[in-house]
Protein backbone atom coordinates (compact mmCIF):
# COMPACT_ATOMS: atom_id res chain seq x y z
CA UNK A 1 0.00 0.00 0.00
CA UNK A 2 2.74 2.42 0.94
CA UNK A 3 6.34 2.21 -0.15
CA UNK A 4 8.89 4.73 1.01
CA UNK A 5 12.24 4.30 -0.71
CA UNK A 6 15.42 6.06 0.44
CA UNK A 7 13.53 9.24 1.15
CA UNK A 8 15.36 12.31 2.46
CA UNK A 9 14.22 15.83 3.09
CA UNK A 10 16.61 18.68 3.57
CA UNK A 11 15.58 22.20 4.51
CA UNK A 12 17.96 24.93 3.40
CA UNK A 13 17.79 28.38 4.94
CA UNK A 14 19.98 31.43 5.13
CA UNK A 15 22.34 31.48 8.05
CA UNK A 16 21.15 33.76 10.82
CA UNK A 17 23.31 35.66 13.27
CA UNK A 18 22.23 36.83 16.70
CA UNK A 19 21.26 40.43 17.47
CA UNK A 20 20.54 43.44 15.31
CA UNK A 21 24.06 43.58 13.90
CA UNK A 22 23.69 39.93 13.08
CA UNK A 23 20.45 40.57 11.23
CA UNK A 24 22.23 43.09 9.00
CA UNK A 25 25.17 40.75 8.52
CA UNK A 26 22.70 38.04 7.56
CA UNK A 27 21.26 40.27 4.84
CA UNK A 28 24.59 40.45 3.06
CA UNK A 29 25.99 37.02 3.69
CA UNK A 30 25.27 34.16 1.39
CA UNK A 31 25.90 31.39 3.86
CA UNK A 32 23.35 28.63 3.91
CA UNK A 33 22.49 26.27 6.70
CA UNK A 34 20.89 23.02 5.81
CA UNK A 35 19.00 20.79 8.15
CA UNK A 36 18.36 17.20 7.23
CA UNK A 37 14.92 16.52 8.69
CA UNK A 38 14.53 13.07 7.20
CA UNK A 39 17.61 11.06 6.33
CA UNK A 40 17.37 8.17 3.89
CA UNK A 41 14.30 6.42 5.27
CA UNK A 42 12.74 3.33 3.69
CA UNK A 43 9.81 1.18 4.72
CA UNK A 44 6.87 -0.68 3.30
CA UNK A 45 3.38 -0.78 4.79
CA UNK A 46 0.75 -3.32 3.77
CA UNK A 47 -2.96 -2.78 3.30
CA UNK A 48 -4.90 -2.82 6.55
CA UNK A 49 -1.92 -2.31 8.84
CA UNK A 50 -2.00 0.19 11.70
CA UNK A 51 1.50 1.53 12.08
CA UNK A 52 2.72 3.74 14.88
CA UNK A 53 5.29 6.26 13.75
CA UNK A 54 7.09 7.53 16.80
CA UNK A 55 10.00 9.76 17.70
CA UNK A 56 10.75 12.80 19.80
CA UNK A 57 9.77 16.34 18.81
CA UNK A 58 11.68 17.35 15.70
CA UNK A 59 12.70 13.79 14.88
CA UNK A 60 11.14 14.05 11.42
CA UNK A 61 7.76 12.39 11.93
CA UNK A 62 5.59 15.17 10.55
CA UNK A 63 8.02 15.77 7.70
CA UNK A 64 7.70 12.13 6.62
CA UNK A 65 3.91 12.28 6.86
CA UNK A 66 3.87 15.49 4.85
CA UNK A 67 5.93 13.82 2.12
CA UNK A 68 3.52 10.87 2.02
CA UNK A 69 0.54 13.24 1.73
CA UNK A 70 2.07 15.30 -1.06
CA UNK A 71 2.54 18.51 0.93
CA UNK A 72 6.32 18.29 0.79
CA UNK A 73 8.44 17.09 -2.10
CA UNK A 74 11.29 14.78 -1.01
CA UNK A 75 14.81 16.07 -1.69
CA UNK A 76 15.82 12.51 -2.58
CA UNK A 77 14.08 9.19 -2.93
CA UNK A 78 10.49 8.34 -3.70
CA UNK A 79 7.20 7.63 -1.94
CA UNK A 80 4.48 5.53 -3.50
CA UNK A 81 1.04 5.48 -1.90
CA UNK A 82 -1.34 3.03 -3.51
CA UNK A 83 0.89 3.16 -6.60
CA UNK A 84 0.75 6.95 -6.79
CA UNK A 85 3.61 9.37 -6.25
CA UNK A 86 2.06 11.96 -3.89
CA UNK A 87 4.14 14.96 -4.91
CA UNK A 88 3.81 14.29 -8.65
CA UNK A 89 0.16 13.21 -8.74
CA UNK A 90 -1.10 15.18 -5.80
CA UNK A 91 -4.77 15.30 -6.81
CA UNK A 92 -5.08 11.55 -7.42
CA UNK A 93 -3.28 10.88 -4.15
CA UNK A 94 -5.52 13.31 -2.28
CA UNK A 95 -8.57 11.33 -3.35
CA UNK A 96 -7.03 8.18 -1.82
CA UNK A 97 -6.00 9.56 1.54
CA UNK A 98 -7.50 11.10 4.65
CA UNK A 99 -5.43 13.28 6.95
CA UNK A 100 -5.91 14.55 10.48
CA UNK A 101 -3.40 16.98 11.94
CA UNK A 102 -4.17 17.06 15.65
CA UNK A 103 -3.06 20.62 16.08
CA UNK A 104 -4.68 22.13 13.03
CA UNK A 105 -8.20 21.65 11.81
CA UNK A 106 -9.13 21.10 8.17
CA UNK A 107 -12.68 22.24 8.81
CA UNK A 108 -14.30 25.58 7.97
CA UNK A 109 -13.82 27.38 11.24
CA UNK A 110 -16.74 29.81 11.16
CA UNK A 111 -19.35 27.52 9.65
CA UNK A 112 -21.58 24.89 11.24
CA UNK A 113 -19.97 21.47 11.08
CA UNK A 114 -22.72 20.24 8.75
CA UNK A 115 -21.60 22.81 6.14
CA UNK A 116 -18.03 21.48 6.22
CA UNK A 117 -19.34 18.03 5.43
CA UNK A 118 -21.50 19.38 2.61
CA UNK A 119 -18.48 21.11 1.06
CA UNK A 120 -16.33 18.00 1.45
CA UNK A 121 -19.02 15.94 -0.27
CA UNK A 122 -18.65 18.21 -3.30
CA UNK A 123 -14.87 18.40 -3.14
CA UNK A 124 -14.46 14.62 -3.09
CA UNK A 125 -17.31 14.12 -5.56
CA UNK A 126 -19.17 11.72 -3.27
CA UNK A 127 -22.51 10.34 -4.47
CA UNK A 128 -25.59 10.92 -2.33
CA UNK A 129 -25.84 7.25 -1.51
CA UNK A 130 -22.19 6.86 -0.53
CA UNK A 131 -22.49 10.04 1.54
CA UNK A 132 -25.49 8.69 3.43
CA UNK A 133 -23.72 5.41 4.13
CA UNK A 134 -20.56 7.14 5.31
CA UNK A 135 -22.46 9.55 7.53
CA UNK A 136 -24.50 6.79 9.16
CA UNK A 137 -21.35 4.85 9.97
CA UNK A 138 -19.34 7.89 11.09
CA UNK A 139 -22.17 9.11 13.28
CA UNK A 140 -22.37 5.70 14.89
CA UNK A 141 -18.71 5.62 15.85
CA UNK A 142 -18.08 9.33 16.45
CA UNK A 143 -21.52 10.63 17.44
CA UNK A 144 -21.23 13.59 15.09
CA UNK A 145 -24.91 14.53 14.95
CA UNK A 146 -24.92 15.64 18.58
CA UNK A 147 -23.00 18.78 17.56
CA UNK A 148 -23.57 18.81 13.80
CA UNK A 149 -25.23 22.24 13.66
CA UNK A 150 -22.71 24.12 15.76
CA UNK A 151 -19.99 26.32 14.25
CA UNK A 152 -16.64 24.53 14.35
CA UNK A 153 -15.03 27.26 16.42
CA UNK A 154 -17.48 26.59 19.29
CA UNK A 155 -16.69 22.87 19.50
CA UNK A 156 -14.67 21.46 22.39
CA UNK A 157 -11.30 19.97 21.51
CA UNK A 158 -12.69 16.47 21.80
CA UNK A 159 -15.65 17.24 19.55
CA UNK A 160 -13.42 19.00 17.07
CA UNK A 161 -11.10 16.01 16.89
CA UNK A 162 -14.04 13.67 16.30
CA UNK A 163 -15.28 16.07 13.63
CA UNK A 164 -11.84 16.22 11.98
CA UNK A 165 -11.56 12.44 12.01
CA UNK A 166 -15.02 12.15 10.49
CA UNK A 167 -14.17 14.72 7.82
CA UNK A 168 -10.98 12.85 6.92
CA UNK A 169 -12.94 9.61 6.52
CA UNK A 170 -15.99 10.88 4.64
CA UNK A 171 -14.67 9.84 1.23
CA UNK A 172 -13.64 6.44 2.58
CA UNK A 173 -9.90 6.83 1.95
CA UNK A 174 -7.62 3.84 1.53
CA UNK A 175 -4.97 5.39 3.75
CA UNK A 176 -5.50 7.44 6.88
CA UNK A 177 -2.73 9.61 8.30
CA UNK A 178 -3.15 10.74 11.87
CA UNK A 179 -0.65 13.24 13.22
CA UNK A 180 -1.08 13.24 17.00
CA UNK A 181 -4.81 12.51 16.95
CA UNK A 182 -5.21 12.31 20.72
CA UNK A 183 -3.14 15.32 21.73
CA UNK A 184 -4.72 17.26 24.58
CA UNK A 185 -7.78 15.01 24.87
CA UNK A 186 -9.23 13.57 28.07
CA UNK A 187 -9.11 9.83 28.76
CA UNK A 188 -12.69 9.08 27.69
CA UNK A 189 -12.39 10.94 24.40
CA UNK A 190 -9.01 9.33 23.73
CA UNK A 191 -10.60 5.97 24.24
CA UNK A 192 -13.47 6.77 21.87
CA UNK A 193 -11.10 8.02 19.19
CA UNK A 194 -9.03 4.84 19.46
CA UNK A 195 -12.12 2.66 19.24
CA UNK A 196 -13.26 4.57 16.18
CA UNK A 197 -9.88 4.13 14.48
CA UNK A 198 -9.98 0.41 15.21
CA UNK A 199 -13.50 0.04 13.85
CA UNK A 200 -12.70 1.87 10.64
CA UNK A 201 -9.62 -0.26 10.17
CA UNK A 202 -11.60 -3.44 10.66
CA UNK A 203 -14.57 -2.47 8.53
CA UNK A 204 -12.81 -0.96 5.53
CA UNK A 205 -9.29 -2.42 5.85
CA UNK A 206 -8.07 1.19 5.97
CA UNK A 207 -4.33 1.47 6.32
CA UNK A 208 -3.53 3.76 9.24
CA UNK A 209 -0.31 5.61 9.99
CA UNK A 210 -0.27 7.35 13.29
CA UNK A 211 2.23 9.59 15.00
CA UNK A 212 1.80 10.07 18.69
CA UNK A 213 3.49 10.79 21.97
CA UNK A 214 0.88 8.78 23.79
CA UNK A 215 2.15 5.29 24.61
CA UNK A 216 -1.37 3.99 25.12
CA UNK A 217 -2.27 4.90 21.53
CA UNK A 218 0.51 2.64 20.40
CA UNK A 219 -0.20 -0.20 22.79
CA UNK A 220 -3.88 -0.28 21.93
CA UNK A 221 -3.77 0.34 18.20
CA UNK A 222 -0.51 -0.51 16.57
CA UNK A 223 0.59 -3.93 15.47
CA UNK A 224 3.79 -2.44 14.20
CA UNK A 225 5.90 0.55 15.07
CA UNK A 226 8.55 2.53 13.33
CA UNK A 227 10.85 4.61 15.49
CA UNK A 228 12.60 7.60 13.99
CA UNK A 229 15.28 9.66 15.64
CA UNK A 230 17.22 12.57 14.17
CA UNK A 231 15.65 11.82 10.82
CA UNK A 232 16.90 8.23 10.76
CA UNK A 233 14.86 5.09 11.14
CA UNK A 234 16.14 3.25 14.17
CA UNK A 235 13.51 0.58 14.62
CA UNK A 236 10.85 -1.10 12.51
CA UNK A 237 8.96 -4.09 13.79
CA UNK A 238 6.42 -5.40 16.23
CA UNK A 239 5.76 -3.91 19.62
CA UNK A 240 6.75 -7.16 21.36
CA UNK A 241 10.08 -7.26 19.60
CA UNK A 242 10.77 -3.67 20.56
CA UNK A 243 10.11 -4.55 24.16
CA UNK A 244 12.34 -7.60 23.84
CA UNK A 245 15.15 -5.71 22.21
CA UNK A 246 15.15 -2.55 24.23
CA UNK A 247 13.28 -3.52 27.36
CA UNK A 248 15.99 -5.71 28.87
CA UNK A 249 15.46 -4.47 32.39
CA UNK A 250 13.03 -6.11 34.74
CA UNK A 251 11.93 -4.86 38.11
CA UNK A 252 10.88 -6.91 41.16
CA UNK A 253 9.59 -5.19 44.29
CA UNK A 254 9.29 -7.14 47.51
CA UNK A 255 7.70 -6.19 50.80
CA UNK A 256 10.00 -7.14 53.66
CA UNK A 257 9.60 -6.67 57.40
CA UNK A 258 13.23 -6.56 58.49
CA UNK A 259 14.46 -4.13 55.88
CA UNK A 260 17.52 -3.25 57.95
CA UNK A 261 18.87 -6.73 57.22
CA UNK A 262 19.80 -5.41 53.77
CA UNK A 263 21.82 -2.47 54.89
CA UNK A 264 25.37 -2.83 53.68
CA UNK A 265 24.59 -5.83 51.52
CA UNK A 266 25.24 -5.72 47.77
CA UNK A 267 22.77 -8.08 46.15
CA UNK A 268 24.86 -8.23 43.00
CA UNK A 269 27.67 -9.78 45.04
CA UNK A 270 25.31 -12.33 46.52
CA UNK A 271 24.20 -13.22 42.98
CA UNK A 272 27.71 -13.17 41.62
CA UNK A 273 27.21 -10.55 38.87
CA UNK A 274 28.63 -7.09 38.20
CA UNK A 275 26.76 -4.18 39.86
CA UNK A 276 25.52 -2.69 36.53
CA UNK A 277 23.40 -5.80 35.91
CA UNK A 278 21.59 -5.67 39.22
CA UNK A 279 20.74 -2.69 41.42
CA UNK A 280 18.65 -2.34 44.55
CA UNK A 281 16.69 0.42 46.17
CA UNK A 282 15.32 0.46 49.71
CA UNK A 283 12.07 2.20 50.57
CA UNK A 284 11.96 2.37 54.37
CA UNK A 285 8.51 3.92 54.59
CA UNK A 286 6.79 1.27 52.50
CA UNK A 287 9.06 -1.52 53.72
CA UNK A 288 9.91 -2.50 50.18
CA UNK A 289 13.04 -3.55 48.38
CA UNK A 290 13.17 -2.86 44.66
CA UNK A 291 15.54 -4.92 42.54
CA UNK A 292 16.15 -3.92 38.94
CA UNK A 293 18.10 -6.41 36.85
CA UNK A 294 18.95 -7.49 33.33
CA UNK A 295 16.50 -10.19 32.36
CA UNK A 296 18.92 -11.77 29.92
CA UNK A 297 21.48 -12.42 32.68
CA UNK A 298 19.32 -13.20 35.69
CA UNK A 299 16.06 -15.07 36.26
CA UNK A 300 13.29 -13.88 38.57
CA UNK A 301 13.48 -16.99 40.86
CA UNK A 302 17.24 -16.47 41.28
CA UNK A 303 16.67 -12.94 42.49
CA UNK A 304 13.83 -13.88 44.81
CA UNK A 305 15.83 -16.78 46.26
CA UNK A 306 18.78 -14.53 46.94
CA UNK A 307 16.55 -12.04 48.76
CA UNK A 308 14.72 -14.72 50.74
CA UNK A 309 17.99 -16.15 51.93
CA UNK A 310 18.56 -12.89 53.76
CA UNK A 311 15.08 -12.01 55.07
CA UNK A 312 11.43 -13.05 54.94
CA UNK A 313 9.45 -11.76 51.96
CA UNK A 314 5.77 -10.97 52.45
CA UNK A 315 4.70 -9.83 49.00
CA UNK A 316 6.22 -9.86 45.51
CA UNK A 317 5.46 -7.74 42.43
CA UNK A 318 7.14 -8.31 39.06
CA UNK A 319 7.11 -5.50 36.49
CA UNK A 320 8.06 -5.53 32.82
CA UNK A 321 9.74 -2.36 31.62
CA UNK A 322 6.99 -0.14 30.33
CA UNK A 323 7.02 0.99 26.75
CA UNK A 324 7.09 4.56 27.99
CA UNK A 325 10.46 3.93 29.54
CA UNK A 326 11.82 2.24 26.46
CA UNK A 327 10.74 5.12 24.32
CA UNK A 328 12.20 7.57 26.77
CA UNK A 329 15.47 5.71 26.66
CA UNK A 330 15.47 5.78 22.87
CA UNK A 331 14.73 9.50 22.82
CA UNK A 332 17.59 10.14 25.20
CA UNK A 333 19.91 8.14 22.94
CA UNK A 334 21.09 5.87 25.74
CA UNK A 335 19.76 2.58 24.59
CA UNK A 336 21.89 -0.45 25.24
CA UNK A 337 22.13 -1.99 21.80
Amino acid sequence: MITVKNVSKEFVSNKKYPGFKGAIKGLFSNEKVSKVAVDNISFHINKGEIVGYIGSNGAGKSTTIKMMTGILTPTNGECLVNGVNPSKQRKINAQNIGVVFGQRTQLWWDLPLSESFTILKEIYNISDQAYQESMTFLNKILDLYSFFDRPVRTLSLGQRMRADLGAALLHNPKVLYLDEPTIGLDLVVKDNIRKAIKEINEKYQTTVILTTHDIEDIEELCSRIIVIDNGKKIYDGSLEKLKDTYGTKRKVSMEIKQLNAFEGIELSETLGVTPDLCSTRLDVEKNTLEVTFDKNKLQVPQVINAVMSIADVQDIQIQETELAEIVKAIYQHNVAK
Partner: protein
Amino acid sequence: MIKRYSRLYKVLISQFFKVIMQSKVDFLMGLLGFFLTQILGIVFLYLIFDKIELLNGWSFEQLIFIYGFAQIPRGIDHLLTDNIWLVAWRWVISGDIDRYMLRPMNILFQIISEKLQPDALGEILIGCILVAKSISAGVSHITITNVILFFLSIIAGTIIYTSIKLFFASLAFWVKISGPFVQFAYQMADFAKYPTEIYTKSIGFIITWVIPFAFVAYLPASYFLGVENSLGIGAYIIGVEWIIAIILGIISYNMFQKGLTVYESAGN
Protein backbone atom coordinates in the same frame (compact mmCIF):
# COMPACT_ATOMS: atom_id res chain seq x y z
CA MET B 1 -13.96 19.42 -15.79
CA ILE B 2 -15.16 23.01 -16.29
CA LYS B 3 -18.62 21.97 -15.13
CA ARG B 4 -17.22 20.38 -11.99
CA TYR B 5 -15.06 23.38 -11.18
CA SER B 6 -17.83 25.92 -11.74
CA ARG B 7 -20.03 23.84 -9.41
CA LEU B 8 -17.23 23.78 -6.83
CA TYR B 9 -16.77 27.51 -7.23
CA LYS B 10 -20.43 28.04 -6.44
CA VAL B 11 -20.21 25.81 -3.37
CA LEU B 12 -17.03 27.42 -2.04
CA ILE B 13 -18.03 31.01 -2.67
CA SER B 14 -21.44 30.50 -1.09
CA GLN B 15 -19.59 29.45 2.09
CA PHE B 16 -17.92 32.83 2.02
CA PHE B 17 -21.30 34.58 1.92
CA LYS B 18 -22.68 32.38 4.67
CA VAL B 19 -19.77 33.35 6.90
CA ILE B 20 -20.05 37.08 6.31
CA MET B 21 -23.81 37.03 6.75
CA GLN B 22 -23.67 35.00 9.95
CA SER B 23 -23.38 38.14 11.96
CA LYS B 24 -25.96 40.67 10.74
CA VAL B 25 -24.30 43.54 12.61
CA ASP B 26 -20.92 42.81 11.04
CA PHE B 27 -22.54 42.56 7.66
CA LEU B 28 -24.39 45.88 7.96
CA MET B 29 -21.31 47.63 9.33
CA GLY B 30 -19.32 46.21 6.44
CA LEU B 31 -21.89 47.48 3.97
CA LEU B 32 -21.88 50.94 5.55
CA GLY B 33 -18.08 51.06 5.50
CA PHE B 34 -18.16 49.97 1.90
CA PHE B 35 -20.40 52.87 0.84
CA LEU B 36 -18.40 55.41 2.82
CA THR B 37 -15.20 54.17 1.15
CA GLN B 38 -16.78 54.51 -2.27
CA ILE B 39 -18.06 58.03 -1.61
CA LEU B 40 -14.63 59.04 -0.40
CA GLY B 41 -13.13 57.49 -3.51
CA ILE B 42 -15.35 59.53 -5.78
CA VAL B 43 -14.65 62.75 -3.88
CA PHE B 44 -10.93 62.02 -4.12
CA LEU B 45 -11.19 61.47 -7.86
CA TYR B 46 -13.02 64.73 -8.28
CA LEU B 47 -10.23 66.54 -6.45
CA ILE B 48 -7.56 64.90 -8.60
CA PHE B 49 -9.24 65.72 -11.89
CA ASP B 50 -10.03 69.20 -10.72
CA LYS B 51 -6.33 69.88 -10.32
CA ILE B 52 -5.07 68.00 -13.35
CA GLU B 53 -3.46 70.10 -16.05
CA LEU B 54 -3.82 69.24 -19.67
CA LEU B 55 -0.99 66.86 -20.46
CA ASN B 56 0.77 66.70 -23.81
CA GLY B 57 -2.36 67.66 -25.61
CA TRP B 58 -4.61 65.10 -23.92
CA SER B 59 -8.07 66.39 -23.22
CA PHE B 60 -9.66 66.08 -19.82
CA GLU B 61 -12.19 63.52 -21.11
CA GLN B 62 -9.49 61.40 -22.68
CA LEU B 63 -7.60 61.26 -19.38
CA ILE B 64 -10.77 60.27 -17.59
CA PHE B 65 -11.32 57.50 -20.10
CA ILE B 66 -7.83 56.07 -19.52
CA TYR B 67 -8.22 56.37 -15.77
CA GLY B 68 -11.61 54.68 -15.75
CA PHE B 69 -10.47 52.05 -18.23
CA ALA B 70 -7.58 51.18 -15.91
CA GLN B 71 -9.88 50.78 -12.92
CA ILE B 72 -12.07 48.08 -14.44
CA PRO B 73 -9.57 45.18 -14.82
CA ARG B 74 -7.97 46.23 -11.56
CA GLY B 75 -11.34 45.99 -9.86
CA ILE B 76 -12.19 42.62 -11.40
CA ASP B 77 -8.84 41.20 -10.33
CA HIS B 78 -9.32 42.62 -6.85
CA LEU B 79 -12.83 41.20 -6.62
CA LEU B 80 -11.95 37.66 -7.67
CA THR B 81 -8.42 36.91 -6.54
CA ASP B 82 -7.85 38.90 -3.37
CA ASN B 83 -6.72 35.82 -1.42
CA ILE B 84 -3.45 35.80 -3.37
CA TRP B 85 -2.39 38.64 -1.07
CA LEU B 86 -2.69 36.27 1.88
CA VAL B 87 -0.40 33.79 0.15
CA ALA B 88 2.19 36.56 -0.11
CA TRP B 89 1.84 37.80 3.45
CA ARG B 90 0.85 34.85 5.58
CA TRP B 91 -0.13 31.47 4.25
CA VAL B 92 3.27 30.26 3.11
CA ILE B 93 5.06 31.05 6.33
CA SER B 94 2.20 29.82 8.52
CA GLY B 95 1.82 26.54 6.66
CA ASP B 96 -1.80 27.26 5.76
CA ILE B 97 -1.23 26.02 2.21
CA ASP B 98 -1.21 22.49 3.69
CA ARG B 99 -4.95 22.12 3.76
CA TYR B 100 -5.31 23.06 0.09
CA MET B 101 -2.68 20.50 -0.81
CA LEU B 102 -4.63 17.75 0.90
CA ARG B 103 -7.70 18.16 -1.29
CA PRO B 104 -8.14 16.75 -4.79
CA MET B 105 -8.57 20.13 -6.46
CA ASN B 106 -6.38 22.65 -8.16
CA ILE B 107 -4.64 24.63 -5.41
CA LEU B 108 -4.77 28.08 -6.98
CA PHE B 109 -8.45 27.53 -7.71
CA GLN B 110 -9.12 26.67 -4.07
CA ILE B 111 -7.25 29.74 -2.87
CA ILE B 112 -9.09 32.23 -5.03
CA SER B 113 -12.52 30.65 -4.69
CA GLU B 114 -12.66 31.08 -0.94
CA LYS B 115 -13.17 34.81 -1.08
CA LEU B 116 -14.70 37.71 -2.98
CA GLN B 117 -13.57 41.22 -2.16
CA PRO B 118 -16.72 43.40 -2.20
CA ASP B 119 -14.64 46.59 -1.88
CA ALA B 120 -13.60 45.99 -5.47
CA LEU B 121 -17.15 46.58 -6.71
CA GLY B 122 -16.52 50.24 -6.00
CA GLU B 123 -13.45 50.28 -8.21
CA ILE B 124 -15.36 48.62 -11.02
CA LEU B 125 -18.29 51.00 -10.54
CA ILE B 126 -16.09 54.08 -10.61
CA GLY B 127 -14.29 52.74 -13.66
CA CYS B 128 -17.56 52.19 -15.50
CA ILE B 129 -18.90 55.62 -14.56
CA LEU B 130 -15.77 57.38 -15.76
CA VAL B 131 -15.66 55.41 -19.01
CA ALA B 132 -19.36 56.07 -19.67
CA LYS B 133 -19.00 59.74 -18.86
CA SER B 134 -16.03 60.24 -21.18
CA ILE B 135 -17.67 58.30 -24.01
CA SER B 136 -20.79 60.45 -23.69
CA ALA B 137 -18.47 63.42 -24.11
CA GLY B 138 -17.51 61.94 -27.47
CA VAL B 139 -13.93 60.66 -26.98
CA SER B 140 -14.66 57.34 -28.69
CA HIS B 141 -17.16 55.82 -31.07
CA ILE B 142 -19.41 52.97 -30.03
CA THR B 143 -19.23 50.34 -32.74
CA ILE B 144 -19.79 46.60 -32.44
CA THR B 145 -16.10 45.95 -33.05
CA ASN B 146 -15.13 48.45 -30.39
CA VAL B 147 -17.49 46.96 -27.83
CA ILE B 148 -16.15 43.45 -28.46
CA LEU B 149 -12.55 44.66 -28.34
CA PHE B 150 -13.33 46.60 -25.18
CA PHE B 151 -14.46 43.46 -23.36
CA LEU B 152 -11.61 41.40 -24.79
CA SER B 153 -9.16 44.01 -23.59
CA ILE B 154 -10.67 44.06 -20.12
CA ILE B 155 -10.40 40.28 -19.83
CA ALA B 156 -6.77 40.34 -20.97
CA GLY B 157 -6.07 43.26 -18.63
CA THR B 158 -7.49 41.31 -15.70
CA ILE B 159 -5.32 38.31 -16.60
CA ILE B 160 -2.25 40.57 -16.70
CA TYR B 161 -3.11 42.05 -13.30
CA THR B 162 -3.69 38.66 -11.68
CA SER B 163 -0.56 37.19 -13.26
CA ILE B 164 1.66 39.96 -11.97
CA LYS B 165 0.15 39.59 -8.51
CA LEU B 166 0.54 35.82 -8.60
CA PHE B 167 4.12 36.05 -9.84
CA PHE B 168 5.25 38.20 -6.94
CA ALA B 169 3.11 36.33 -4.40
CA SER B 170 4.73 33.06 -5.53
CA LEU B 171 8.10 34.41 -4.46
CA ALA B 172 6.86 33.74 -0.93
CA PHE B 173 7.66 30.06 -1.44
CA TRP B 174 11.33 31.03 -1.56
CA VAL B 175 11.47 34.11 0.69
CA LYS B 176 8.55 33.18 3.02
CA ILE B 177 6.90 36.62 2.96
CA SER B 178 6.61 38.35 -0.38
CA GLY B 179 3.93 40.89 0.52
CA PRO B 180 6.24 43.87 0.01
CA PHE B 181 7.03 42.72 -3.54
CA VAL B 182 3.36 42.44 -4.41
CA GLN B 183 2.76 45.86 -2.93
CA PHE B 184 5.57 47.29 -5.01
CA ALA B 185 4.13 45.77 -8.17
CA TYR B 186 0.74 47.16 -7.29
CA GLN B 187 2.15 50.63 -6.90
CA MET B 188 3.64 50.31 -10.36
CA ALA B 189 0.07 49.77 -11.54
CA ASP B 190 -0.78 53.34 -10.61
CA PHE B 191 1.47 54.48 -13.45
CA ALA B 192 -0.90 52.76 -15.83
CA LYS B 193 -3.68 55.19 -15.05
CA TYR B 194 -2.01 57.96 -17.04
CA PRO B 195 -0.50 58.14 -20.53
CA THR B 196 2.88 56.45 -20.56
CA GLU B 197 4.39 59.34 -22.58
CA ILE B 198 4.31 61.64 -19.57
CA TYR B 199 6.98 59.56 -17.82
CA THR B 200 10.68 59.32 -18.53
CA LYS B 201 11.76 56.81 -21.15
CA SER B 202 13.06 54.26 -18.63
CA ILE B 203 9.85 54.15 -16.61
CA GLY B 204 7.88 53.98 -19.82
CA PHE B 205 9.96 50.99 -20.91
CA ILE B 206 9.55 49.22 -17.57
CA ILE B 207 5.77 49.54 -17.42
CA THR B 208 5.43 48.54 -21.05
CA TRP B 209 7.75 45.56 -21.27
CA VAL B 210 8.93 44.51 -17.79
CA ILE B 211 5.88 44.83 -15.57
CA PRO B 212 3.52 45.53 -18.43
CA PHE B 213 0.81 47.55 -16.74
CA ALA B 214 0.74 49.91 -19.72
CA PHE B 215 -0.99 47.10 -21.60
CA VAL B 216 -3.72 46.94 -19.00
CA ALA B 217 -4.89 50.46 -19.59
CA TYR B 218 -3.07 53.13 -21.51
CA LEU B 219 -2.11 51.25 -24.68
CA PRO B 220 -5.51 49.67 -25.40
CA ALA B 221 -7.30 52.81 -24.17
CA SER B 222 -5.39 55.00 -26.62
CA TYR B 223 -6.56 52.69 -29.41
CA PHE B 224 -10.17 53.30 -28.42
CA LEU B 225 -9.45 57.02 -28.23
CA GLY B 226 -7.97 56.92 -31.71
CA VAL B 227 -4.65 58.33 -30.51
CA GLU B 228 -1.34 57.02 -31.77
CA ASN B 229 0.97 55.63 -29.08
CA SER B 230 4.49 54.20 -29.04
CA LEU B 231 3.20 51.01 -30.70
CA GLY B 232 1.36 52.85 -33.42
CA ILE B 233 -2.37 52.62 -33.74
CA GLY B 234 -4.68 49.73 -34.53
CA ALA B 235 -6.76 46.88 -33.18
CA TYR B 236 -3.60 44.71 -33.15
CA ILE B 237 -2.73 46.38 -29.84
CA ILE B 238 -5.49 44.33 -28.21
CA GLY B 239 -3.92 41.26 -29.85
CA VAL B 240 -0.51 42.14 -28.38
CA GLU B 241 -2.24 42.65 -25.03
CA TRP B 242 -3.68 39.14 -25.25
CA ILE B 243 -0.31 37.63 -26.20
CA ILE B 244 1.26 39.33 -23.20
CA ALA B 245 -1.60 38.18 -20.95
CA ILE B 246 -1.16 34.57 -22.05
CA ILE B 247 2.63 34.63 -21.71
CA LEU B 248 2.45 36.24 -18.28
CA GLY B 249 -0.30 33.86 -17.21
CA ILE B 250 1.82 30.85 -18.16
CA ILE B 251 4.97 32.24 -16.50
CA SER B 252 3.30 33.13 -13.23
CA TYR B 253 1.24 29.95 -12.98
CA ASN B 254 4.39 27.89 -13.53
CA MET B 255 6.15 30.00 -10.96
CA PHE B 256 3.37 29.20 -8.50
CA GLN B 257 3.52 25.47 -9.31
CA LYS B 258 7.31 25.48 -8.99
CA GLY B 259 6.89 27.26 -5.67
CA LEU B 260 4.65 24.49 -4.40
CA THR B 261 7.45 21.97 -4.93
CA VAL B 262 9.77 23.94 -2.65
CA TYR B 263 7.01 24.72 -0.15
CA GLU B 264 8.26 23.85 3.32
CA SER B 265 5.03 23.91 5.35
CA ALA B 266 5.53 24.81 9.01
CA GLY B 267 6.65 22.76 11.98
CA ASN B 268 4.08 21.71 14.53
